[in-house]
């Protein structure tokens, strides 16, 4: 990627992360649509021999063979039996029955996580710079499980099965399914087995935001990553005939618009379809749009398809307006015609001009790439939100990372829009989604694994969470673009990832397999469900009191039955154990409460002193909560600090 490394501080701290030895021993497995091996992001110049721990392979198939792998791309496999069993044999004229990426998504995510340094990268000049993965020295192993028709769980399980045998160190999965319980969810099941083998599993949180309870991949043994913006934008202004200018974003590159104002029409008024405003296939009346700029609304069909529909109907350009669900979020696209995307507010203003002026006119002014945009990061509107619909007592997402307008490697088989009509071919593309933020964390986890090979997956995730930031340098809280207000732990989890601090977090909240089994007991899983998920005959100890409140997670989600608490205040106790991974130190606790009354929080002991490495100390948090209306949420933050290290945890308190 370009810009993410600077935005995350990796450029200034390169010397802090190991660059030789262990750094190039870490292997990131990516379950996705495969890879385009010719991408410059998989150049292996300067990399030593393939790690001796590697047991994987480079499979042969359509347009792919062992010679396509190298010391960067050390493994490439594909899994299609489940896909073919359901949808029939792969049509090899349409997709490669091999690890080759015909879609672009897999090359993008793999190169984001661990791509080599590529000078002079850009998309048509946009987002130009030196592209590099988060872990430039790590190795990549691609496991193709996603096909044109989808990603099938029997193939996903087979890929994770193989990745474990191959000895990957990190698994990156930018995919999700429904919200079935953990023992029925193949990603959760496979991730549990991987975690047991010391593999950190990083997954996308989902793009179903800003609705609440919209998360995917919420198992506690998975690192769940939401999406935030970078400090980079691609401004393209809408200049109206009434002299008003409204900013939008665009990645359009090509013949510009004529240097004059052009006739402007709202798609809803140039169509016979009831949803003609959406610019869906065959809904625009050519006579009404030919030679004009067309305003379309987001929704239902793909943004880039709207542009293609306008172009096919003879439109000269498009202004694409956000609706309420995307608010002011601006995702840029490499449209096939001059087009720009505007937020909901500006979209409404432009529409009122359209209806008020008898001869509305407009043009679009493209300004290229702009950096230093503030405030940034903001939580992307599409980023899925908590609470955790499967286990509300487990706060998710875990963190956010860059996921909006991310440039990274692309397939040579498809254009930047992914449309069949797009005959352009690019080495890098700019796309958005929690699919993009997940591999950022996968690569950062690989960096931490290289620096601390002895850390468990839980310790790595803890380091990333307790050092994440929740406010800008000016002290203002992170914003949620969907509301224009401060985001909450249900939006950003522990906050935005901060890898330089994560390298030395001071203390970590560690978790063992037994802790995760205790979590399942606290959920009252049956022996059969635990056997399905954890492949062992395990009976929860009837004499033990398993409690979600004592599950050693680096965050807190306190749930109160509003009806019960109406009779007065309730007292809830939560215990945690911190492990010292830094120098000796005495840590003092502080609590910041960001919203409302109704909660008193105290911590015992208020001081923890560590003298040894890996020394463990426990503490108890007592929440005294008074009655509040149902569906009230309150948030706070608990921090341990010795003056140098800050170990932060978000607290979400919900009255249900």
């Amino acid at each position, binding site marked *: 990627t370009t810009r993410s490394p600077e935005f995350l501080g990796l450029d200034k701290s390169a010397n802090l992360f190991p660059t030789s030895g262990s750094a190039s021993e870490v292997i990131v497995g990516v379950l*996705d*649509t495969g890879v385009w091996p010719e991408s410059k992001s998989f150049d292996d110049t300067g990399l030593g021999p393939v790690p001796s721990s590697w047991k994987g392979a480079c499979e042969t198939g359509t347009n792919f063979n062992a010679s396509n792998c190298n010391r960067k791309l050390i493994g490439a496999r594909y899994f299609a*039996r*489940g896909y073919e*069993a*359901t949808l029939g044999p792969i049509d090899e004229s349409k997709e490669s029955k091999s690890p080759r990426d015909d879609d672009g*998504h897999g090359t993008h995510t793999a190169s984001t996580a661990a791509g080599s340094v590529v000078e002079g990268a850009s998309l048509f000049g946009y987002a130009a710079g030196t592209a590099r993965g988060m872990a430039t020295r790590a190795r990549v192993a691609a496991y193709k499980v*996603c096909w044109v028709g*989808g*990603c*099938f*769980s*029997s*193939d*996903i*399980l*087979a890929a*994770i*099965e193989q990745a*474990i*045998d191959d000895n990957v160190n990190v698994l990156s999965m*930018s*995919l*999700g*399914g*429904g919200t*079935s319980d953990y*023992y*029925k*969810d*193949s*990603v959760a*099941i*496979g991730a549990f*087995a*991987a975690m047991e*083998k010391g593999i950190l599993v990083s997954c*996308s*949180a*989902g*793009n179903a935001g800003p609705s609440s309870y919209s998360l*995917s991949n919420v198992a506690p043994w998975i690192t769940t990553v939401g999406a935030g913006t970078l400090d980079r934008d691609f401004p393209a202004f809408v200049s109206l005939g009434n002299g008003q200018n409204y900013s939008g974003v665009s990645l359009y590159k090509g013949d510009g618009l004529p240097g004059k104002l052009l006739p402007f029409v709202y798609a809803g008024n140039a169509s016979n379809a009831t949803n003609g405003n959406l610019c869906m296939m065959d809904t625009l009346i050519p006579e009404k749009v030919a030679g004009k700029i067309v305003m379309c609304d987001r929704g239902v069909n793909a943004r880039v398809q709207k542009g293609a529909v306008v172009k096919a109907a003879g439109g000269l350009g498009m202004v694409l307006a956000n609706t309420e669900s995307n608010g002011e979020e601006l995702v840029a696209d490499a449209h096939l015609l001059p087009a720009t995307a505007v937020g909901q507010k500006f979209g409404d203003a432009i529409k009122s001009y359209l209806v008020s002026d008898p001869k509305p006119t407009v043009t679009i002014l493209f300004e290229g790439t702009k950096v230093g945009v503030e405030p940034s990061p903001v939580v992307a509107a599409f980023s899925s939100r908590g609470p955790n619909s499967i286990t509300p007592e487990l706060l998710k997402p875990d963190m956010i990372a860059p996921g909006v307008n991310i440039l990274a490697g692309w397939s040579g088989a498809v254009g930047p829009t992914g449309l069949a009509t797009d005959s352009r071919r690019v080495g890098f593309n700019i796309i958005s*989604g*929690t*699919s993009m933020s*997940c591999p950022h964390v996968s690569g950062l986890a690989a960096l931490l694994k290289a620096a601390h090979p002895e850390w468990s997956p839980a310790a790595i995730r803890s380091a990333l969470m307790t050092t994440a930031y929740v406010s800008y340098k000016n002290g203002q809280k992170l914003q949620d673009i969907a509301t224009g207000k401060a985001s909450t732990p249900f939006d950003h989890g522990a906050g935005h990832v901060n890898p330089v601090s994560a390298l030395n977090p001071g203390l970590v909240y560690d978790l063992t397999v037994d802790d995760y089994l205790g979590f399942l007991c606290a959920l009252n899983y049956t022996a*059969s469900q635990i*056997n*399905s998920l954890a*492949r062992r*005959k395990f009976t929860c100890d009837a004499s033990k009191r398993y409690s979600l409140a004592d599950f050693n997670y680096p965050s807190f989600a306190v749930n109160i039955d509003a009806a019960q608490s109406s009779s007065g205040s309730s007292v809830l106790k939560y215990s945690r154990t911190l492990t010292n991974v830094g120098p000796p130190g005495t840590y003092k606790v502080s609590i910041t409460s960001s919203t409302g009354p109704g909660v008193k929080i105290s911590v015992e002991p208020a001081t923890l002193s560590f003298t040894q490495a890996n020394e463990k100390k426990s503490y108890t948090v007592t929440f005294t909560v008074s009655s509040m209306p149902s569906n009230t949420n309150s948030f706070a933050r608990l921090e341990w600090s010795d003056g140098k290290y800050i170990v932060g945890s978000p607290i979400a308190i919900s009255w249900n």
Partner: protein
Amino acid sequence: AAQNPDQRATYIIHMAKSEMPASFEHHTHWYESSLKSVSDSAEILYTYDNVIHGFSTQLTREEAESLEQRPGILSVLPELKYELH
């Protein structure tokens, strides 16, 4: 499979490996035998041992329901389709 009972769909079969009968030398033989007890034609798509103890296969709904009753079967879960984010 829900609409057409003869329609085959893919299922993930979770087995309680520790309950493998002594008569079998290897758990894959036990899996094969369990599958053949409900369907002559069904083939194993994948056998798993790291992520789960079990296998995936294509069954009719009726076959899936009768397999679920067999000894050592923990669950017979319909395959799920996942989407890229």
